[in-house]
């Protein structure tokens, strides 16, 4: 037990088992292992050996670590290694002897499971708790992160409030319009009545005027004429009322819905305020159209605001200095293309370019932002690749930040860059 069996004793065992000469056994077992080594070092991905298992070549990525004695950051270079997966048959063979022992144990265990199941049920809770514990904190964090966005989202609610108010106002306006229409109809009716009365009365009046003088007829005339006159007045009053109501509505709405839309306010002010009958409808239609346009504009604006806020992290990120040299290359190309056209200019441009290429390397460090906001689909490895050029700085990033789970950083999380 726990002894080291050397190559020698293996070939000895071979001799015992097959009866070949010691030399042959030696050469064979040497050839056997050498072939594996050679195949793997020659770039073979894997070597399958029946009755033993698979030897596989695995690449270990380079990673960053810290020298414990002086705290310096060092890169542990990547290397290849041989991994070995034993065949199932091998594992079975190794456990054969155990199974004999286990058989006795399993009889005992078969009695145990009944007892074991009871505590198992109890164990469920702690396990679940363990799983659940990290989740609430996660959610809280997320809520904090999106608090700002929530505020913004609440603005559409206010938009809806405005819309509700607008709809209320619309209803009021419609009732006012109906009233105005009724008043109009009444007025027309009264006018007709007046005309009829006048027509009917005229002969009588004439007769009366000739017969009985002006006194009584005058009274009657006044009576007759007063009635219709009062009616139109009432109608006009009503109309004015509706107008004032509408203006009030318009004003209130302007204050509510237009307070942020300056342009449409100016237009609303310019609207004609004529009280004419024909203008009534036109005025209303234009008003409604303007209102709708204003609301659409307002909604669009708020949504744009939200988008802008969401885009802020995107703007923060690409502070990489790479585009600059690229652009310069392009200018160089174009400059080459137009060489024949202006030789003198090209020289100066090229001279500039020769000075520039070294700058990006110098600029790179100050240009690196100190934080990074996680976007969808990003991992810390990718960030490391993006800002440092290697995946090795992942550990450094994790060290500087406090993550619940470095493998699953929530979207929107701000990552400090060391």
């Amino acid at each position, binding site marked *: *037990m*726990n*002894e*080291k*069996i*050397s*190559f020698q*004793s*293996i070939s000895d*065992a*071979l001799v015992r*088992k*097959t009866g*070949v000469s010691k030399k*042959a*056994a030696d*050469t*064979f077992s*040497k*050839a*056997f*292992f*050498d*072939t*594996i*080594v050679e*195949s*793997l*070092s020659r770039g*073979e991905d894997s*070597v*399958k*050996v*029946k*009755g*033993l*298992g698979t*030897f596989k*070549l695995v690449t270990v990525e380079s990673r960053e670590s810290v020298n414990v004695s002086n705290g310096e950051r060092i890169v542990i270079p990547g*290397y*290849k*290694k*041989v991994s*070995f997966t*034993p065949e199932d048959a*091998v*594992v079975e*063979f*190794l*456990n*054969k*002897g*155990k199974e004999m022992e*286990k058989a006795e144990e399993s009889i005992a*265990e078969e009695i145990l*499971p009944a007892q*074991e199941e009871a505590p*198992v049920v109890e*164990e469920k809770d702690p*396990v679940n708790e363990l799983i659940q514990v990290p989740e609430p904190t996660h959610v809280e964090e997320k809520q904090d992160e999106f608090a700002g966005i929530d505020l913004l989202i609440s603005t559409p609610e206010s938009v809806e409030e405005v819309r509700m108010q607008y709809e209320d106002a619309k209803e009021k306006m419609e009732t006012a319009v109906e009233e105005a229409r009724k008043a109009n109809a009444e007025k027309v009716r009264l006018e007709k009545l007046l005309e009829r009365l006048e027509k009917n009365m005229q002969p009588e009046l004439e007769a009366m005027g000739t017969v009985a003088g002006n006194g009584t007829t005058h009274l009657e005339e006044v009576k007759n004429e007063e009635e219709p006159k009062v009616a139109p007045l009432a109608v006009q009053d009503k109309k004015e009322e509706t107008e004032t109501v509408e203006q009030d509505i318009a004003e209130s709405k302007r204050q509510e819905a237009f307070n942020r839309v300056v342009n449409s306010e100016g237009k609303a002010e310019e609207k004609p305020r004529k009280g004419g009958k024909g203008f009534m409808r036109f005025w209303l239609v234009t008003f409604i159209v303007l209102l709708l346009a204003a609301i659409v504009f307002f909604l669009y604006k708020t949504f744009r605001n939200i988008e802008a806020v969401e885009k802020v992290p995107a703007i923060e990120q690409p502070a990489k200095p790479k585009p600059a040299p690229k652009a310069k290359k392009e200018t160089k190309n174009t400059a080459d293309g137009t060489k024949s056209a202006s030789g003198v200019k090209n020289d100066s441009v090229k001279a500039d370019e020769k000075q520039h290429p070294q700058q990006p390397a110098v600029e790179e460090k100050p240009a690196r932002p100190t934080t990074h906001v996680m976007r969808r689909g990003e991992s810390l490895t990718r960030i490391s690749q993006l800002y440092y050029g290697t995946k090795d700085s992942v550990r450094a990033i994790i060290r500087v930040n406090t993550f619940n789970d470095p493998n699953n950083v929530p979207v929107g999380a701000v990552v400090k860059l060391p």
Partner: protein
Amino acid sequence: MTNKEFMEKVSQKAHLEMEEVKNLSSALMEAVLEGIADGNSVAIQGFGVFEPREKASRKIYNPTTKTYMVVPSKTTLSYKMSAVLKERINME
């Protein structure tokens, strides 16, 4: 590389017939595995060490049946490559 390709290479290298190679290699495997089964480690110069490794029994949870099951402990064969092999593989 499959087992067949491997055996061919070994036969070329050891100047042996395929039949012989198969017999010998199965005997070799037996020798190694017997040593492992006894709880010994088999160290082969320039190649690596084969060791028996105990895997402790553990409880697993089946989410569909919502039951806990016990995976019995078992022994597997572990292999660790030698420093020489590491060097050879990473030469290039």
